[in-house]
């Protein structure tokens, strides 16, 4: 429990960055109609945007100012850790009429995270 608490504390303090998220379509029951792929690496963004914001946190001018204000007034929240670059995936699936479709879906994979 102590180790878990320590790890949680460490995770809580971790700066904003990209984390692994493997989506398995069978887990959500979509493998019945999605032919390929069986799943994909989606990733997600998580972490804090601390004051002062470092360069690698890929922040906007607004996020820098918001973080600065948060440092003096905690009523104003910190900037959010969000996807800043996304990429598409192609899905081969059967639609509701049993027609086979290959379609490119945009913004399905997180390529980069940042404070916004």
């Amino acid at each position: 429990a102590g180790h878990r608490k320590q790890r949680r504390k460490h995770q809580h303090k971790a700066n904003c960055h990209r984390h692994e998220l493997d989506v398995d379509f069978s887990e959500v029951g979509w493998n019945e109609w999605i032919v390929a792929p069986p799943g994909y690496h989606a990733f997600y963004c998580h972490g804090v945007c601390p004051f002062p914001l470092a360069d690698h946190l890929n922040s906007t001018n607004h996020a820098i100012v918001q973080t600065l204000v948060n440092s003096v007034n905690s009523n104003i929240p910190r900037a959010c850790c969000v996807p800043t670059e996304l990429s598409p995936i192609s899905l081969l699936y059967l639609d509701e009429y049993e027609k086979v479709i290959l379609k490119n879906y945009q913004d399905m994979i997180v390529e980069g995270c940042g404070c916004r």
Partner: protein
Amino acid sequence: GAAGLIPEVGRRKYSESGKQSPEQSENFLNEFELRLLNMFGLKRRPNPSRQAVVPQYMVDLYRMHSVNGDHSTKRPRSMGRHAERAASKANTIRSFHHEESMEALASLKGRTTQQFFFNLTSIPGEELITSAELRVYRDQVLGVTAAPTSNTSYNSSNSSNTNTSTSVGGIHRINVYEVFGAPASPRGEPLTRLLDTRLVQDSLSRWESFDVSPAVSQWSSGGSHNHGFMVEVFHPDTQGVEDAQRQSRHVRVSRSLHEDQDSWPQARPLLVTYSHDGRGNAVLHRDKRQA
């Protein structure tokens, strides 16, 4: 999760979280469900039967074109150049099998014609068709060897042309027409216009791809009514109806023209449409396009 796209576990967890009244929870979940369906361009959750067939060509296209696919896969030999170009502009590729109950087969004087109807009503109105190909499978005719090209007057099987001088044995012509009107008399022929044509050798087994973009674009945009296609297999050196039918069996335009029923689902004609809904990039891989 059988009824919708949200897994039952997720639904239950949200409902039991106590953040909302049961009615509100249900409304929020239903709204989210609609967003998911809209994201995929679906009206309801697909529930394909066991008989649903995924054409191998679509799997090949997925492997070849998809951003997450196997990029070592080469372009299928039978894929027309126009189809490859079309795929580089489209973000959606759809495949259709014809309605077998509406097919009409006829054989006369050395030629076999087959009428196909493809139900394209599932293509959303906002999708712009950039191209379409009709694919027909030909089995090799055993005992027939490729005719030497130096002594013949036909063009390459890869090139479309309108020359109808087909005088060489082991060669036949496939014509693809758009049907744009019913026959004037009950025994008459439908009104058609030629979309694509090709001379092919009996000695090769392969898919033939025909460009049917003009017709499908018109049907999709509402410019003309979808009466289907007519495929004509023409053998210049056959003697009669039976001879024509025997020769036509290796062109798999109809279930009734060949005996191997098991292979029919993967050998039957296939209409492939390439379209773009205005959202996102083409199916073609970014790196390939850059290259």
